[in-house]
């Protein structure tokens, strides 16, 4: 069975788009008998045959004024099946071009060799890129009008390379061709012996489409719950990334509960595994309240947020209203949202950014959006399925805009990192030590602070420059705005990790003593601090011991219900999978434990 390639063609009418498609179908032997006959007979009036006329409808539609929309065509060669979205080229039809681009894996952008790159070449490439296309073919047409000159082609090619670099296009093929005569369309041109690349058709038949997305984890937005009877509860959805097998451990967001996969049905058949792109129905081993819009995943980094920054293309005749609420449809989730800031408008051709109070039809803009509740989403580049969305007008129900997420946090988007003359390496050298963060996690009362204190005392005696960050101390100051629910705990840890990183940059050895109960948060801390400077210590003192110590009387309060969400009692502690050092602090002196730990650090961090 053949692979499918979806592509779009863009370029203005004058660039020879229809001629190219007509010629391609002719050369590939894909015309119907009657069309072939018509072609062989030739026009009766002695004029030259127009391949464009083969594309039933196009001319006719132009007269009717409905070329404005995308048309889909289908053809199959020996090597591959193709679906072409033929998109209009004019600026006022940007939205329709975006529709075609959102559908395609690859873009074929036409230009006229004699005219070189025009602003619309930029606009087409930019919109395709914005919609997520990674592979591009630039068809430099009408080479016959420039005498098949290699020099002309080379200069266009150089310009196209710099355009591609500009837009972050890394998969591209630039082909010189003459669509009318068929040069480099489906066979190699003899009139351009200097070109040794592939012809258009053979390139399209062979090109590998990079479907690789950065997200390797299993992600499935729940489309629908399947309940044929009281005993069966399955979750229907299409796998957006990664793969899954029976027995896999998964997390359900936004509730953040864990479960194991017990069965997988793909298109009415039982399977042991399933991977991205498959429509499945899965069951899990626990009774969790899951509904449409939730996400089942094995990712520990996927997060929920109510605040995103995104690039949008405005579709609606009614301009963006900052005081109106829209529905955002993202994945399988549909909730109210409001655009609360227009960061800038982006010129589709030049890419120039300008401040604006308004976003109107066919504008590309970068905006900040506040969603009415936290939903699971990511940057578009990370995982397209959870990084793209529609905005729907709540009164007219019109699809007002589409967008792709640039970042999922409000802050930090207009900031750039400034390099300083004194680097962290120089600072570390001056202090004569390698900076490090020793991250201690464990239950309340496990002895984290005691151990951290003993380690710091020992290091200080060795002449090391250290800093100890203790849970309560940080919460009394820097983090006194945070509570103890899951999100606040995550933010608490994120800030501590950022502070640790700054102190490491200053050359210090940092010791942290935080319960840090969630795997996801510790993983994030490791990411912020950098794995080479991160040393994870698990203070694995049994809960009975911790509770019997109860230095601060907290366990007692938690048991009586006076404190909600207390780790180990009413809130879970996820044990580290593979810590660098584990120690039980129920017996032995803190000094001995500290000595063991320091020996381990010097062994591992050499």
């Amino acid at each position: 069975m053949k692979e499918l390639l979806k592509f779009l063609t863009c370029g203005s009418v004058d660039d020879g788009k229809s001629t190219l498609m007509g010629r391609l179908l002719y050369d590939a032997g894909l015309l119907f008998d009657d069309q072939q006959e018509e072609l062989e007979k030739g026009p009766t009036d002695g004029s030259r045959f127009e391949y464009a006329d083969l594309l039933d409808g196009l001319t006719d539609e132009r007269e009717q004024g409905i070329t404005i929309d995308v048309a889909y065509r289908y053809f199959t060669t020996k090597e591959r099946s193709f679906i072409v979205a033929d998109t209009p080229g004019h600026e006022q039809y940007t939205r329709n071009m975006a529709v075609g681009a959102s559908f395609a894996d690859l873009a074929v952008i036409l230009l006229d060799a004699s005219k070189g790159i025009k602003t619309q070449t930029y606009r087409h490439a930019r919109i395709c890129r914005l919609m997520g296309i990674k592979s591009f073919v630039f068809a430099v047409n009408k080479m016959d009008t420039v005498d098949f000159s290699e020099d002309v082609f080379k200069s266009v090619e150089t310009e196209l390379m710099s355009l591609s670099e500009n837009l972050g296009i890394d998969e591209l093929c630039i082909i010189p061709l003459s669509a009318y005569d068929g040069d480099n369309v489906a066979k190699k041109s003899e009139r351009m012996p200097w070109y040794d690349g592939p012809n258009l058709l053979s390139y399209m038949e062979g090109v590998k489409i990079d479907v690789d997305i950065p997200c390797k984890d299993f992600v499935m937005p729940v489309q629908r719950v399947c309940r044929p009877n009281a005993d069966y509860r399955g979750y229907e959805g299409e796998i957006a990334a990664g793969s899954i097998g029976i027995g896999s451990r998964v997390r359900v967001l936004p509730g953040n509960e864990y479960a194991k996969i017990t069965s997988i049905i793909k298109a009415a058949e039982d399977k042991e595994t399933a991977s991205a792109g498959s429509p499945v129905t899965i069951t899990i081993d626990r009774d969790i309240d899951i509904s449409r819009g939730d996400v089942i995943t094995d990712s520990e980094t996927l997060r929920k947020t109510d605040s995103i920054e995104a690039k949008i293309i405005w579709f609606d005749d009614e301009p963006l209203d900052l005081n109106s609420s829209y529905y955002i449809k993202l994945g399988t989730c549909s909730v109210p949202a409001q655009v609360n800031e227009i960061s800038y408008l982006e010129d589709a051709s030049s890419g120039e950014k300008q401040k604006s109070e308004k976003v109107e039809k066919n504008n590309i803009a970068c905006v900040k959006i506040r969603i009415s509740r936290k939903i699971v989403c990511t940057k578009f580049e990370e995982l397209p399925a959870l990084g793209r969305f529609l905005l729907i007008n709540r009164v007219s129900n019109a699809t007002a805009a589409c967008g792709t997420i640039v970042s999922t946090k409000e802050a930090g988007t207009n900031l750039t990192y400034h390099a300083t003359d004194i680097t962290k390496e120089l600072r570390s050298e001056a202090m004569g030590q390698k900076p490090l963060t020793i991250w201690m996690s464990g239950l309340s009362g496990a002895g984290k602070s005691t151990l951290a204190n003993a380690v710091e005392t020992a290091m200080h005696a060795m002449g090391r420059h250290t800093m100890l960050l203790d849970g309560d101390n940080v919460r009394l100051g820097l983090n006194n705005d945070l509570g103890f629910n899951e999100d606040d705990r995550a933010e608490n840890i994120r800030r501590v990790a950022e502070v640790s990183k700054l102190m490491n940059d200053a050359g210090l050895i940092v010791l942290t003593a935080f319960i840090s109960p969630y795997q996801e948060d510790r993983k994030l801390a490791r990411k912020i601090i950098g794995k080479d400077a991160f040393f994870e210590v698990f203070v694995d003192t049994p809960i009975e011991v911790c509770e019997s110590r109860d230095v601060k009387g907290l366990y007692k309060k938690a048991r009586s219900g006076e404190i909600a969400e207390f780790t180990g009692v009413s809130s879970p502690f996820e044990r580290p999978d593979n810590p660098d050092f584990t120690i039980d602090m129920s017996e032995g002196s803190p000094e001995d434990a500290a000595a063991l730990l320091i020996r381990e650090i010097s062994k591992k961090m050499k």
Partner: protein
Amino acid sequence: MKTELVSKTHLDRLEAEAIYIIREVAAECEKPVMLYSIGKDSSVMLRLAEKAFYPEKPPFPFMHIDTGWKFKEMIEFRDRVMKEKGLELIVHTNEEGVRKGINPFDHGAAYTDIMKTEALKQALTKYGFTAAFGGARRDEEKSRAKERVFSFRDANQAWDPRNQRPEMWNLYNTRIAKGESMRVFPLSNWTEKDVWQYIMQENIEIVPLYFAKKRPVVCRDGQYILVDDERLKLKDGEKIEELSVRFRTLGCYPLTGGSLSEADTIEEVVEETLHASASERTTRIIDKDGGSASMEMRKKEGYF
């Protein structure tokens, strides 16, 4: 149980896309219905609906708009299949049209308007369906080539080709106001070849009329029309012949021409189709009335 192969074929991708669309409708639309025309595309759509929800049955009824002029074999097939699968079937006929004696021989284009377009609108209004699945494909006809997967219809059930909702990625805007509705085409991106290959791959049962068999036909305007019942009146010079014919599309028997063929197995039918050069709808007379824009006109009026 099998471990799934990672590479996805062309049919895998089309199947996944169709299932996704069908599930979106079931999850988001208030009162969906699947139009079941008994043809091969409907048979494929029915299979996809079963796959989308298994082990549950499709959570919506199926509806057939019966003009009263369908091939007899189609009706038998419809009733048997629906019963075997235990699915809910609604059959709707424009009774007023029947009373007025509207028929394909005497009323031409008006027949289609009254017995199909009008009948469909009546039925959707009568049952209050807010979304109706249809098996139309974009490769069938040029106005369909431009239609969205989720095709919005106003309160008069009309399609406005100049004002279609932009459709991005797999994000479908299913929101409608009271009285408005959606037509949804899960097979939009399938070609006729894909449909046949899928029927073969999945071993889907289809109406025997698709296979060549000696049948009583009369040649009229260059088309072989099946003499399915006594309502077909012979014109001067016409005679009934027993010829081996099969049908590439199924509809009302007086309006559906058969083609001469010996292909009586699915493999042969697929083989013949893969090498066919005349586009599929040339055997369906309905699109020819009123020239090339006729389908677009019908769609604007609410025909599928």
